[in-house]
């Protein structure tokens, strides 16, 4: 799997952080807390490196980046069963993992409820990348 998708995600995160800082009229971004759902199989090293590189020369340059891991968990809409996936390679092929890497909702195509076999379930946690919080320094 190529790592370039991580750059796209990192770009979006830094754009979001800078937008928040601008709206808060902040002089700098101190901390960015990012949840990384493991369903998206992000290469954390590349993702962190992209974040560090992209924040250079911006008011987020000194920001501390915290990556918070989340195991992917699900709840079946049909029978109510709840489960988590620890090892994606046991559940999906390489192609399927790559498809889910790009669009996590496609897990519904490749995975079904272990109890009733239906594909109608919620991703309760660990879906993908989102910014949990940003701490800024006010002017």
């Amino acid at each position, binding site marked *: 799997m*190529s790592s*370039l*998708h991580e*750059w*796209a*995600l990192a*770009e*979006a*995160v830094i*754009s*979001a952080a800078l*937008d*928040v800082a601008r709206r808060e009229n902040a002089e700098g971004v101190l901390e960015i807390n990012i949840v990384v759902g493991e369903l998206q199989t992000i290469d954390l090293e590349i993702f962190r490196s992209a974040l560090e590189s992209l924040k250079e020369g911006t008011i987020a340059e000194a920001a501390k980046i915290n990556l918070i891991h989340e195991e992917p968990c699900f709840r079946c809409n049909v029978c109510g069963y709840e489960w988590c996936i620890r090892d994606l390679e046991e559940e999906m092929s390489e192609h399927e993992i790559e*498809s889910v890497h*790009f*669009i*996590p*909702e*496609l897990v*519904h*195509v*490749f995975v079904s409820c272990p109890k009733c076999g239906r*594909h*109608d379930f919620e991703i309760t946690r660990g*879906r*993908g*990348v*989102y*910014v*949990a919080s*940003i701490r800024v320094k006010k002017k």
Partner: protein
Amino acid sequence: MIDARIYGIAKRIQNVRRVLSMVSGKGGVGKSTIASILSLVLKDAGYRVGLLDLDFHGPACHIILGIGKFQYHEEHGIRPHIHEGIEFASIYPFVQDNYVPLRGRDISNAITEFLSIINWGDLDFLVIDMPPGMSDPFLDILRYIPNTEHIVITTPSKLALQTVARLLLFLREQKYRIMGIIENMKTYESNIVRKLAEKVDTKLICEIPYDGNLEESIGNPASLRKTDIYKELKEKLPRIIGEE
């Protein structure tokens, strides 16, 4: 919680000059066929063209244009697949022939993710083949790309017209851009669609007769270029893109 993906979408389409969406409240009126053939017409007229198939449950543009199996090339996201000089993106390479049982909110999430990772090049036109209806995909495009120009496709069937009229009313009242109506699969003389266009103060772009031989051209761009649909769309291109 901040959804950073939304920030990525604007960047992905920043080099796209115009976005044309093929919409209809109703399914089976020929949106995918017109989106695909219009992309060929635009390309042949010298424009830089992208085609986005947003029908996650039933993507069809790859079938119409004869695009075989392919994988996306990654370049700060994914680069569209190039076919007949057209930049093409669809969910098909990811799901292939599997069924796609997604609820509305999952479709919306998937569309947001997809739009935030497709790295379109410098395009004059991005043509979007929309799924039928006015649910998540339609509302997401209005939300993320509000300056989209809508081409409304309908057949002259009474079964389609009432739903299409609602869509037109919505677009008009909400002040979105309507480029006009394409009447497709016309089998008999009738001014029912023209009257609808007049009612919502838009133009009837063209009337495309039903082509019983179209099926034979599906999957073959050279053959698609010889169809009446191609000829009609080519002739009316200035009207379609509002340059008449």
